[in-house]
């Protein structure tokens, strides 16, 4: 499946772009409304961009009453990105999500632009697992030294899938040496994030057989193929949607050629190809 990365598309403002996706992932929903951080919220870097939007969203009640029905009417499967500042907050939102209409829940366990919940990713997943039978994907940070350890922990408490990666925390300075973003640091995304995403997905695949949504710096069909070769079952588009609203169609069109150019017969044949080669190399010694 091809999805959007949470926060990188507003399906109600641009429904024609959402219609190009296999599922739409909402902006993260928090219990209370959040106006988001003060501007400036974005800045370009040489090889990516930083954002510090700050989980701007209308809050759980308004989302459930107004936003979600309008999203469901688009006819695209809806994944709801859930955020919070404690495990109980995440769990309460999961409890309130309708299980008959929402396709999936993605737990945002890794936003670099707000203060984090005190509990671990596994504690939050466990709390949500008790409240919903919807599929639960854990969206993890690339900051963890051992992604595999976190993956095994959230799988152990009932996660149904893994989303990797969220943005990396980054900082850039204005000409006068003050932070370019009002919040200071922000989430680093775009082409520079791609090798980080590949490494994280690769490590996660070695730790689990759960489905993985790979994302981070994808811009072309070849980039999608590389994430699949590292073990992603699905791929999400982020920053590229800002540049090219037609990216979903373009990337799909490029993917077939990318598979051929890499000398694989089908996309399935390329799945986890990066792992076979690592194993072969090691065995060859």
């Amino acid at each position, binding site marked *: 499946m091809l999805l959007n990365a949470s926060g990188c598309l507003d399906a109600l*403002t*641009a429904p024609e772009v959402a219609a190009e996706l296999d599922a739409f992932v909402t902006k993260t929903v928090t219990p209370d409304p959040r*106006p988001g951080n003060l501007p400036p919220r*974005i*800045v370009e870097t040489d090889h990516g*961009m930083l954002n510090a*939007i700050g989980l701007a969203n209308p809050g759980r009640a308004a989302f459930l009453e107004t936003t979600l029905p309008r999203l469901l009417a688009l006819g695209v499967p809806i994944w709801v990105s859930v955020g919070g500042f404690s495990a109980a907050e995440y769990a309460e939102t999961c409890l309130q999500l309708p299980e008959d209409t929402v396709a999936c829940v993605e737990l945002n366990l890794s936003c670099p632009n707000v203060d984090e919940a005190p509990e671990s990713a596994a504690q939050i997943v466990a709390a949500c697992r008790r409240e919903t039978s919807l599929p639960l994907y854990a969206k993890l940070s690339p900051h963890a030294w051992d992604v595999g350890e976190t993956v095994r922990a959230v799988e152990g408490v009932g996660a149904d899938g893994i989303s990797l990666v969220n943005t990396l925390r980054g900082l850039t300075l204005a000409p006068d040496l003050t932070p370019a973003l009002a919040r200071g640091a922000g989430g680093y995304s775009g082409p520079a994030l791609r090798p980080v995403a590949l490494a994280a997905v690769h490590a996660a695949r070695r730790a689990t057989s759960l489905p993985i949504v790979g994302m981070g710096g994808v811009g072309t069909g070849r980039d999608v193929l590389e994430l699949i070769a590292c073990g992603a079952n699905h791929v999400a588009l982020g920053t590229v949607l*800002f540049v090219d*609203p037609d990216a979903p169609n373009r990337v799909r069109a490029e993917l077939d050629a990318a598979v051929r150019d890499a000398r694989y017969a089908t996309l399935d044949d390329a799945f986890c190809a990066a792992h076979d080669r690592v194993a072969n190399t090691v065995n060859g010694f």
Partner: protein
Amino acid sequence: MSRPTRAPRRVAAVEALGPYTLLRVERAGTDPGVPGQFFMLEAPGRVLPRPMSLCLAPRGELWFLFEPVGPGTRALAAVEPGDELHVFGPLGTGFRLDVPKPLLVGGGIGIAPLPYLALALDRPPALLGFRSERHAEAATLLPAADVVIDPVLVTDAMPARRDVLACGPEPMLRAVRELAPTAQLAWEAPMACGYGACYGCAVEVDGELVRLCVEGPVLEGASCS
């Protein structure tokens, strides 16, 4: 409202106008939109495109005026005739044109959307302010305009009781709004996407953060900060 399109468009010419750059691209099937609307222009070699309001739309072309001050605008100023750039637009909310006594007010590079607006309003009076004689060379795009040069400000020369449509630096827009509270003002903010996806261009309007690329860039009688 016209539907935005994104397509590669050939560069027809790149001209210097004082310190500014006038970029002319072939229009092909692109809708020029309403004055005050903007386009996202691919900045070669950069990650993100740059938002530019349309300056003029003579037959077969789209003209954009900008000041090369950062990596994106410098990359755009360095393109050559025959190069292709992705052009995405028209985007955002432009000027409302049903005004009985229009007066166009522009400051510096903020004059960019005014030539196209002047044509749509049948060449109303216009008042432009620049920081130097060299910058004022751009006034040739609005031949009938009154021009003031720093330290004289546009607000020193603004006639009263007009329907003001203005674009310029934020201090100028705030000063214009003091004199003309119902003015239509075209604001600016850093944008990643231009179509409401990134929430990066939030500005505070009447105490609420809104996306300038959707609600604006032209805001009317609003207390944008």
